[in-house]
């Protein structure tokens, strides 16, 4: 497979605070230095984009020394917390803004979809907007004409095609906008979280379209989304960004796992204060069969979850309810046990060879069944299950579900 995108030492700096205006002297000073080929005096190197700490320069690196290559036909997901540089990377790659340093090279035509319906004019009809929007996205007129019926059909707005789009419902508007974008004919497609539009049905349709684009048509896709489930379904590889730097570039399962792990403490949750009236979960730990606290398990190991409660606050008829969540926060299975006023520690054993490889977390609550919740903690204690030896491990990164289940072949 040939490399179609090559990114080399790509960096992008942003200025913090007030930009220019009223600071003409600083502008002139900078301009004068740069004009003589000296480095920008206000651009200090080495400042990374960590929002929580106060830096000593007005410039931050939103992207720093990003290097990667993407092969033809691959769908690559870009993951990272808010502010990690995902959108900046997409903006630079789609040429909306230029890099501060470094460069990237592209083979084939590249089209970006940072927003749907860019340039839609409310006074123009659906038909006119399809052409205008298509042209803005880089299509030639005859290309749009040849796909026109397909676009209208995909959007399902045939009756309204000669009505100004300002009279469209917001759903119709978005569907039409996405339909235009989905029919772009470029070898490389850059997509921001535009799938967060429309109703569930339409989202599914969009995801399906994206998937077929990369799988059947051999096109390369770069995709940013917070929806880890759809990323895992669409992409084969993932790029994890952290404070503007590339933390890893690997198979999507691996990267999603790392991302999830990065976000949490290692396999333990300790309640910082228990002053609340009824709050009674004090500590949650993930431990292995030897009793050590850990956050990584082989699929053939038993996993123990230990819950420590405040004895005095345990109420009559209350129980503890635990759900295991997967990397995209979907609930996989529930389990529950009745609490005993005399007992403060409860341990749940998850059988070996039950969870498939991936990243998991815990959602736990204490409640009086069918009456009310007492204490609740969502998405704590992330842990990872690795699998290099099961029969299914030969399928690599393919998403085949979260539990091995119990079934028999005859």
């Amino acid at each position: 497979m040939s490399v179609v995108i090559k990114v080399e030492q790509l960096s992008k700096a942003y200025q913090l605070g007030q930009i220019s205006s009223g600071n003409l002297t600083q502008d002139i000073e900078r301009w004068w230095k740069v004009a003589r080929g000296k480095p920008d005096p206000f651009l200090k190197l080495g400042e990374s984009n960590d929002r929580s700490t106060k830096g000593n320069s007005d410039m931050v690196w939103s992207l720093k020394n990003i290097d990667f290559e993407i092969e033809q036909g691959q769908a690559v997901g870009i993951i990272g917390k808010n502010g990690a540089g995902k959108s900046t990377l997409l903006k630079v790659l789609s040429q909306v803004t230029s890099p501060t340093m470094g460069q990237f090279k592209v083979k084939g035509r590249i089209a970006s979809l940072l927003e749907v319906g860019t340039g839609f004019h409310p006074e123009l009809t659906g038909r006119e907007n399809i052409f205008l929007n298509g042209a803005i996205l880089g299509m030639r007129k005859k290309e749009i004409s040849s796909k026109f019926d397909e676009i209208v059909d995909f959007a399902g707005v045939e009756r309204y095609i000669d009505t100004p789009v300002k009279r469209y419902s917001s759903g119709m508007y978005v569907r039409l906008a996405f339909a235009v974008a989905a029919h772009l004919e470029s070898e490389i497609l850059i997509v921001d979280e535009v799938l967060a539009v429309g109703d569930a049905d339409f989202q599914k349709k969009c995801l399906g379209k994206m998937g077929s684009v990369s799988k059947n048509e051999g096109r390369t896709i770069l995709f940013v989304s917070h929806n880890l489930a759809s990323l895992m379904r669409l992409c084969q590889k993932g790029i994890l960004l952290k404070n503007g730097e590339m933390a890893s570039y690997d198979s999507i399962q691996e990267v999603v796992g790392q991302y999830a792990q990065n976000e949490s403490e290692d396999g333990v949750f300790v309640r910082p204060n228990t002053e609340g009236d009824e709050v009674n979960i004090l500590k949650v730990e993930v431990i292995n069969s030897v009793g050590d606290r850990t956050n990584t398990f082989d699929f053939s190991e038993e996993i123990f979850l230990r819950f420590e409660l405040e004895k005095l606050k345990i109420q009559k008829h209350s129980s503890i309810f635990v759900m295991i969540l997967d990397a995209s926060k979907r609930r996989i299975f529930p389990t529950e046990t009745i609490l005993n006023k005399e007992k403060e520690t409860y341990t749940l054993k998850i059988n070996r060879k039950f969870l498939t490889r991936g990243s998991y977390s815990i959602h736990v609550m204490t409640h009086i069944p069918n009456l009310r919740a007492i204490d609740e903690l969502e998405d704590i204690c992330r842990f990872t299950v690795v699998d290099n030896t099961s029969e299914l491990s030969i399928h690599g990164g393919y998403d085949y579900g979260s539990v091995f289940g119990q079934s028999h072949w005859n």
Partner: protein
Amino acid sequence: MYQVNQSKDPSWDLVVSSKRDLFDFRIKEVWRYRDLLALLIRRDFVAFYKQTIFGPLWFFIQPIFTTVIYVFIFGKLAGISTDGIPMPLFYLVGITAWTYFSDCLIKTSTVFVDNAHIFGKVYFPRLVMPLSIVISNLVRLGVQFVLLALAMLYYGIQGVELGTSWYVLLIPFLVFLMAAQGLGLGIIVSSLTTKYRDLALLLKFGVQLLMYLTTVVYPLSSLNGTIKTIVAANPLTPLIEGMRLGLLGEGSFTFSDLAYVSGLTAFILLIGIVVFNRVERSFVDTI
């Protein structure tokens, strides 16, 4: 779908780096986006008269009323000479030409700020936007020339002798120069307004003053001394004088004026494109 081969290394179709040649105009790329240019022009035109009763008739109403007012104020009250040309015709030529220039200038001067939402989301050669403004104004100018022709026909039937001359053939070129000046100045201002918004405010005021330094409401021949030198140095003056000479037979216009204006226009446009190309690369970060 079109992306220019900007790469020197033939195995890559596109290379984007932090540095770009100052004189890399990427005119080829603009050409590849000509369909977009055409659609934007159409959009401007259609959006202008949708939901109006008179539609394209509005293109006539503004010059007619302005002419009536100028006839009254500058012609009747102030008694400024019109070189013996019927007042409405004299002013109509000036207004038609001036409106075109000032529309080009004012509308292109806000092109970055007005289109920030589009520019921030998708890439296409930014120059397409100001070009579409200049060209869609050209459509408007064409309609207004029809009005001018009707007015001339009316006066011709009335028996007024109009000295229409062969200079009339120069008009397309004069219009082109006017467009180039409006575009050049407009994109310089628009590039600077991405950082210093004051300029946009200054411009509106400046354009009004500039009109009085141009021979819109008076002929160049009515001036003397220093003021005449200043007005004659204004690159717009020979253009309007030239149009009057061609259409109405009166105007101070020579070919050396034409050479002067052409040179100056080329210079303004060059500076404009260089500045614009520099700013377009990262203005999204500052706007």
